[in-house]
């Protein structure tokens, strides 16, 4: 809806200001109390990226500490001084883990990318429960605030896993932190609930389950995990709080409780949680690769079902975190087998993406560079996971830096890289601006190098036996630790460049066309940025990966849809009821 403003004195006519979801309405309360999924998505993205930078700061502190064997920042000459200093180090890595896991990795792709794109991908006006969406967001904010408050008073030093009995007896502010995570858990549950109902009930006519974009399938599988697994961490953290506050004794061996029970409860959620982190990321890659290969996705049904398979099998592998904690050998073997099994659907996806790229017309724009980085880095991470899933090797590698290298490859090289790819892919749609392609590619290459330089040495030094969560180490590990720290600084450079050109594009970037990349999913039929209601009329649904109808228009620097003979547009092939009767 245009709103032309004319100055009465000036003779030059002002350009009409287009109203879209960002600039109208303009008040603060219209943002804080918004029911618009796009605004909620942007707010999630902003807060999530802020949390990512704080968590990243913690990471830089950790890596700087580990530059010298005795510890650069936290060290002490006496035993007491060393004890206190290393306790502070424990707080730093605990914060790093909690911020990254609970405030960035778990909520951000569903909350930011999912919230923004899901209704657009489905041709809907909003998610099923917009008010619940807002509640989810404010629960997220409250959780973040509570956890940050605990940081000020005395952050927990238990590690993000909060193993008992130390988490019961430590004098740091565990309850604050754990309450924050409890609220974050409910935010996650409500988001998942919202998305499941949206996908079931708000699809447009003609969009059967197998005509949905694959990011929607990934979101559906993720939401199923969110709904099923998160309540378990809720009750676990509640029990931990009651332990500390009331002395219930259920996890405290001094009172007859069982600390290994805590570990089972904790990992029953936290393992499916890592699939919450990676499934939407894989969904993003499934969207980016076909668009930038100008080729239909290979094996649509296989990718869709593999998302569900990962979600399902992922519920049954939590015991691989407890291989060395006194489980019976039989149980160890079962969990090991299931861990190998869950790697299979992930491999299916990797093969399908590569098959999509094969003989495609590859366009190496920034989102595609991130997608290719994802494939490389996630493969390395996934293969190291299989090494850890084997019992004999896990006994040696448990609690070493090999584990740290593994999960950083999958979480950073997987989820974060996919998130950044998604931000670059949907940036024109979200903000109506194009960023500098040149700087985008530079930042991607620097980040790719940085990730490898940081985490590959960690795999090596872990295999040599360096334990994780240690503030000091043996001198022979120093070359690897130093290389790892240099990599961390390289990553910082990449992120600073990224922040610079992205923020610059918001103010000075070229205006984006509706469809800059030539995507065939429904969000590219809306203007960039979209209006408040997304779609004026119910959109016509076609094959989300059929690019034969999309033609590049140099005047727009974007793609437009044209009608062609022999197209795979399902809408044009659905017979009208009159024709059906005579057939």
């Amino acid at each position, binding site marked *: 809806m245009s709103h032309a403003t004319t100055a009465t004195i000036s003779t030059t006519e002002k350009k009409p200001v287009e109203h879209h979801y960002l600039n109208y309405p303009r008040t603060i309360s219209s943002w804080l109390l918004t029911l618009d999924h796009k605004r909620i998505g942007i707010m999630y993205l902003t807060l999530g990226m802020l949390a990512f930078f704080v968590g990243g700061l913690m990471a830089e502190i950790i890596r700087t500490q580990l530059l010298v064997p005795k510890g650069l920042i936290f060290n002490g000459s006496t035993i007491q001084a060393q004890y206190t200093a290393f306790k502070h180090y424990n707080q730093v890595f605990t914060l790093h883990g909690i911020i990254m896991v609970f405030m960035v990795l778990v909520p951000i792709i569903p909350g930011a990318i999912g919230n923004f794109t899901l209704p657009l991908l489905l041709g809907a006006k909003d998610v099923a429960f917009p008010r619940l969406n807002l509640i989810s967001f404010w629960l997220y904010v409250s959780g973040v605030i509570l956890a940050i408050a605990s940081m000020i008073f005395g952050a927990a030093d238990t590690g993000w896993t909060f193993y008992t009995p130390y988490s019961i007896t430590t004098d740091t502010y565990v309850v604050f932190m754990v309450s924050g995570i409890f609220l974050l858990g409910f935010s996650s549950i409500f988001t998942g609930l919202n998305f499941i109902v949206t996908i079931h009930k708000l699809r447009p006519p003609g969009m059967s389950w197998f005509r949905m974009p694959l990011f929607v399938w990934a979101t559906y599988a993720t939401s199923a995990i969110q709904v099923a697994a998160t309540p378990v961490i809720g009750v676990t953290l509640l029990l931990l709080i009651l332990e500390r506050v009331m*002395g219930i004794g259920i996890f405290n061996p001094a009172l007859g409780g069982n600390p290994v029970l805590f570990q089972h409860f904790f990992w029953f959620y936290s393992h499916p949680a890592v699939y919450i982190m990676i499934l939407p990321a894989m969904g993003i890659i499934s969207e980016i690769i076909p668009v930038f290969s100008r080729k239909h996705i290979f094996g649509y049904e296989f990718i869709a079902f593999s998302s569900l398979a990962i979600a399902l099998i992922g519920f049954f592998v939590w015991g691989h975190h407890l291989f060395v904690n006194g489980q019976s050998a039989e149980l160890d073997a079962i969990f090991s087998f299931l861990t190998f099994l869950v790697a299979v659907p992930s491999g299916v996806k990797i093969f399908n993406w590569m098959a999509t790229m094969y003989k495609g017309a590859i366009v190496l724009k920034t989102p595609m560079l991130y997608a290719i980085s994802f494939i490389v880095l996630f493969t390395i991470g996934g293969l190291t996971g299989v090494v850890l899933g084997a019992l004999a090797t896990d006994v040696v590698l448990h609690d070493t830096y090999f584990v740290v290298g593994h999960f950083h490859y999958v979480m950073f090289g997987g989820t974060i890289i996919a998130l950044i790819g998604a931000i670059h892919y949907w940036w024109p749609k979200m903000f109506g601006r194009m960023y500098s392609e040149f700087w985008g590619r530079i930042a991607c290459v620097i980040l790719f190098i940085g990730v490898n330089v940081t985490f590959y040495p960690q795999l090596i030094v872990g295999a040599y036996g360096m334990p994780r969560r240690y503030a000091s180490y043996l001198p022979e590990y120093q070359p690897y630790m130093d290389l790892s720290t240099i990599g961390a600084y390289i990553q910082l450079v990449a992120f600073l460049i990224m922040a610079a050109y992205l923020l610059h594009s918001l103010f000075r970037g070229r205006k984006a066309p509706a469809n800059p990349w030539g995507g065939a999913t429904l969000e590219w039929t809306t203007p960039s940025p979209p209006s408040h209601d997304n779609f004026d009329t119910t959109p016509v649904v076609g094959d989300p990966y059929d690019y034969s109808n999309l033609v590049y228009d140099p005047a727009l620097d974007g793609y437009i849809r044209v009608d062609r003979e022999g197209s795979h547009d399902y809408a044009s092939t659905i017979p009208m009821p009159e024709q059906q009767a005579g057939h």
Partner: protein
Amino acid sequence: MSEAIPLSTNEQEILRKHLAHHFDTPQQQFESGKLGMWLFLATELLLFSGLFCAYAVYRALHPDIFRFAAQWLDWTSGLINTLVLLSSGFTMAWGIRLAQMGKKKGLAVCLILTMTGGLTFLAIHGYEYFDKYRERLLWGTLYNPDLGGNGKPVLQEASAAPLVGGSQPARTGDWPLLNQLGQAGYIVSHSDIAPAADGPSGIVQSAAAEPATLPPVQPYNVQIFFGIYFIMTGLHSFHVIVGVGLMTWLLIRTLRNDFGPTYYAPVDYVGLYWGIVDMIWMFLFPLLYLIH
């Protein structure tokens, strides 16, 4: 469905007020809400599943604790609570039916009856809790009940006389190590499996073999049972309080004439919630009260 029935002005007003902009039909909105509510109930079930799992693990590992503690759980108040919740579930369902038929007064009465049921449940529970508090049957280090004698649990092997009736001979000679431990001050947990036969037939005929209603000596760590008991019933009672609060909100809306045959979704959803609160109690009651 709603297109076929001609709507009165009041009903059209309700429709216009309640159909959200992102839904196409009221039917779609109602079904979405129902699916959402069922998903939420699934999460509630999973929330309690952790506690049921803890119960199962501890029960499997320490059955003697559960048998010993069961003597203090009054199954009659548990039964009354069960009947109260069941009838409140009935009145809630009846209320939904009345809302569907547009009978405002009946709906209000049913809501009040259901709330009364919930509050009665809480009152009976509260009395139970107070009782336990009085007898110091609490969790963790607060567990300190009076078991008779000088208030301390008695060791079977260390003392000659057993705690509960019967005149079983002291078998101190058979378990010298236990005897030593008992004398050193350790609480000795004694199995309540009757000893092997002394007589020629091989079956113990002793009149002193009391029915195994409770082990003669308090086992280790009975406070774990009470920790689990208070957490499970406490979390459940919290959900009952929330349910009563939701019904208060529904009552206010009923009196404001919000509900009718075309719009009764909130009543339906709260009814579902109350159903699961009821169902969780159906599991809690036998597991906590009926074990002996």
